[in-house]
Each structure stands twice: as structure tokens, then as C-alpha cells.
């Protein structure tokens, strides 16, 4: 019988992290990039809670994870407001279309 241990969580987190980075790099849609960011943040959350549960036994990892969720929510709120503003001026949220400011 396989017991789930710390390493399983760390591998899961590493996979989610890689997917998040992949998502950030490949997506050209601003929302797609934001989803990649959320994936990376959740990978960090899995790490934090797993470390907290299996290693330290203290509450600070859990607490950190709660704050990261809050941070992700705040970032999404202001991010989507900015995307709306961008959409209102350019009728798209494709980041490659933002090419007015360049060298």
C-alpha cells in the first residue's frame, strides 16, 4: 500500500510550477499569462502546506499559504481591471498588440 508522503507533494508542486511557467511563456493572451501566474502561486501553496504539515509542524506555512491566496485574489482583481482598460482602448488583450512603447 502506497502512503502519500512529502515527496509526492513536492513532485506535484514541481509539475504545477512547470506547467505555470510553460503557460506564462507560451500564452499571448493576458488572461492566459495570469492563469500561469496563478498556477505558480498554487504550486508554492502546495509546497508551503506540505512542508508545514510534514516537516515543521508549525502554523506559519499554512498562514503563508492563506496570504498567498489573498495575494492571488488581489492581483487578479487589479489585473482584470487593467485588462479591461487595455481592452477598452485596443479591443484586444493580446499582449503582442501592445507595441506602441518600444525602442
Amino acid at each position, binding site marked *: 500500500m502506497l502512503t502519500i508522503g512529502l515527496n509526492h507533494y513536492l513532485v506535484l508542486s514541481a509539475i504545477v510550477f512547470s506547467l505555470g511557467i510553460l503557460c506564462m511563456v507560451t500564452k499571448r493572451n493576458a488572461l492566459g*499569462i495570469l492563469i*500561469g*501566474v496563478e498556477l505558480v502561486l498554487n504550486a508554492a501553496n502546495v509546497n508551503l502546506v506540505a512542508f508545514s504539515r510534514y516537516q515543521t509542524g508549525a502554523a506559519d506555512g499554512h498562514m503563508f499559504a492563506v*496570504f498567498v491566496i489573498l495575494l492571488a485574489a488581489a492581483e487578479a482583481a487589479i489585473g482584470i481591471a487593467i485588462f479591461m482598460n*487595455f481592452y477598452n482602448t485596443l479591443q484586444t488583450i493580446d499582449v503582442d498588440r501592445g507595441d*506602441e*512603447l518600444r525602442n
Partner: protein
Amino acid sequence: MTHALLAATPLWMPSAADLQRLGPLWSLAGTIVAVLFAALLVGRNYRVAGAIATLGGVFTATLCWRGITGGAVPFAGLAPEAAAPMLVVDQFSCFFIFLISVFLVLVTGMWFMGLDAGVPDEAARRRDAVEFFVLFVGSAFGMALMVSTSNLLMIILAVESASLPSYGLAGFRKKHRPAAEASLKYILFGAVTSAISVYGASLLYGQFHTLDLMKISTAIGSQGISVLTGVGLFAFLIGVAFKVSAVPFHFWCPDVFEGASIEITTWLSVASKAAGLGLMLRIMWLLSCTVQSADAMRWVAHAVAIMAAITCTVGNFSAFRQTNLKRLLAFSSIAHAGYMLMAVSIIWQPRESAAGMPHPASSAVIAYMIVYLLMNLAAFGVVAMVYWSTGRETMDAFNGLGWRNPLLGVVMATCLFSLVGLPPLGGFITKYYLLIALYDASLIWLIFVAVFNTLLSLYYYARIAYAMYFVQSDEAPVRAPAMGQFAVLMCAAAIVLSGTFYAGKLKSFSDQRSRDMYGAMQPTGLRVAERPTADSMH
């Protein structure tokens, strides 16, 4: 499990004395609330909002000044465990919060001047002033938090609470294409770097089982830096490097500086960088606070030195081709961040020989930061006044400025030559302190990089000066508000004085702050055994 956790953690309340020591932070947070409530009570009045922000800034600056000069406010850790503080308000953070809140007041003044000078979107500015000042003071609060913490979680929250309002500020002009684009790029860059930074923090937590930098440092001292620690540390530092706009995390900087309105550009160019460098100094200093960990941190410090050298060079080379003044000054600010990062990279070097002596790296950064604030305020002030008068921010608006408005021409020339670092000006003397610090740390190659970069930067700064005096222009004289002209003149005078009569005073002031810092940044007895304390001097 959860019940056991809750039972094991005793209920903890901070004492009133501890809360009182966080005065500067309370004052900034209170200002945000006051701006919001004033809008509720007296309606959306831009004068009231601006006045409250100004008062809040002045009050915070006064509190911090008392903290700086009053001497012993060594440490206030807002946490159940005294050895692992969440918030730290010491001389070091007092100095940086002082700088930030003074700058807050000055930029607010600039905003009001812009209203009277007739900026294009004047009506919208008056209408949205309340939101503007809430975001503005909010970002100042985040920056104040950045320089007053030594805990991984608090660092990430502080960086975010400085960044989130800044994203909004960058895109504050609605229906304005460059602003929309600038804020989009800003938030995407910021979100990506902060996510990676959080992941790095989670790796560090897993490695060391604590969020406190002091404890991590002790652990690094005994275990050395493994590959995983290195990865975690670098991932974590990416979030800070983004705030400092160190290469390769600088791409947002020129776009945001060009797209945002000029007050915001001025604000971000100084305050955001000051907070980032303060945080970087504290992280590097705390992580190398024992002799063993300083030894282990040597490689991280070398990486920072290399990053500083690249930041400088890339900033200066990219500034060559720019025609938009805001964009040019953005690259110049990247280059200056590089110079200051050079000092950060030598903070790990222990100074056992001289007990109570200030660390040359931190006093170089403080002196540099003071003069950098003056130079940038005056340079952006002149760009703003030319923009208000001509409606352009490009190089050709500066043609013949020396004849169209002699005062602005002289001020701008002073700033430009001080930014290069030419002798009788403040920019020279601070760069000199920096190079001396690097020489003491025997980083000769970094001195060569800095001098080479100074020569590079001479070209593009001199290009503006050339346009101001040697390019003919038949445009109308530049009319500028009297208050604004007076303010930039005072800045220019301060730049000249700090390079000549008051150079010694600047040195002793920054040494004093640095000495205080050196003492104050030893939170617990951890370092006392390995290193002489500054207290033995007092």
C-alpha cells in the same frame, strides 16, 4: 492536526509599546483611511484629498526624523517570538521611510502644479483625485513596509502592497493608449516575478523550516548553501530585483516610465528604487550576518555584483538611442540602480577590524540615494515643466531651452552633469564614495565597470545639454510656474552644495545613519559573539 496546532500556539497580543514603535507605518496607513473617509464626509474634493496626503507625508517624515535623530529606537519586532520579528522599525527603515514620505510630499506638490499649468486631462484628474491619492499613499505604505521587515512572508506582502497600487497608478489615465499598455506590461511582469518569488520563498521555507531571515542566515552558516537553497534564494530575489529594475528584470521600466504620467514616473523612479535597494541591503546584510554565513554568501554576493555590472552597462547602452526624455531617464535610472547594486554586493564583507565603524557599502548607498533623489526630482521637474508648456516630452522640445528659459536650462544642465558624475557636483562625490567602498572591498573589476559606464553615460547626457544650448530653435519661450522653477532651483543648489561645501556633511550624515543601521540591524544576540557590535562605540 489542526486542533493540535491551534492548541500549541498560544494566543498572542502585541503590547502597546510595540505598536507605538510602528508609528511611521501607522501614520501612512492612517493617511489612506483619512483620504477615503474625507471623500465620504466632504465629497470628492481634490484639494482635501491632496492636503490630507501632504499632511500625512509631513507627519510621517516628522516621526521618522525623530526616529533617526532620537537615537535609540533600536528594534521593534511585531511577533510572538522576539527573535523572529515580522516588522522592524529601526534607524535603517526610519531613514528610508523618511526619504519616501518627503518624496511623497514633493510629488504631491508636483501634481498640484500640473493642474494649474493646464495638463490635457485636467478635468479627469480633478474628478479622480481621491482614487489617485489613495493609490499613491498606498504604494508609499507598501514601500515603507518593504524597508521595515526581515521575514519572508512580510517581504512578499510588502513588495505586493507596493506594486499593486503602482500598477493602477501607471494606467491611471483612462482611454490613453500608452498608459493602458504601460500598466498591462507592468502588471504582467510584476505578477510573473512575484509568483516566482513566492515559489522561491516556499523552497527556502522547506529547507530551513522558518520564515525569518536571521534564522535562515544562521542555518546557512552551519549548513552552507546547497543547490536547492541557491535556487530558492535566487527565485526569491527575483521579486526584489524587479522592484529595483535590475537587468534582466528591467523590461517594464522604460515602458512604464514612458506611458505613465510624469508625476508617477518621478515617484517610481526614486521611491520604488529606494525601497527596493533598502530591502536588498537588509536581505543581503541579514543573510551574511555571521562569519560562517558571510563566507557561504560570498557566491550570492558575486552574482549580485555581476548583475549590477550588467544592469549598469545595459542601462547606459540602451539610453543611447532614446529620443523620449522620460524613456531616456528611465534607462538612466536603471544604470543608477546598477551603481547602487554594486554597493549592495559588498555588504557581506565583514569588518571585524573596526568596531562600530559604519559599513562603507551602506553609507555609500545612503549618500547616493539622497543625491539621486535631488537629481531625479529636478530633472523630471524640468521635463514636466517643458511638457506642460509645449505638450511634448521628446528631445526636440528641449532644443534651445537654455535660451528659451535660462533658469530651467541651467537647472537641467546641473542635473545632467551630476547624473554623469562630474566633479563639482553631488553626483561626483557620491560616486566617489561608492568607488572608494568598492576599492576597500578589493573589487577592482567592478570599479573599471563603473568608470567605463560613467564615460558611456557622458555621451547621452551631454547630447541633451548640447540640444539645450547649441541647437537653434525658434519656438516660443517656455513658461513655467514660479513655484516649480523655485523648487527645481533649490534642488540644483542642493546638488551643487552637496558636491562642494557640504560634501563632508553628507558623508558624516550617511556614515551616522549607516552606523546606526549597523548597530540596529543586529536584532538579537546572534551576531554579538562573532562580530563587534556598534554599541561599544556609544
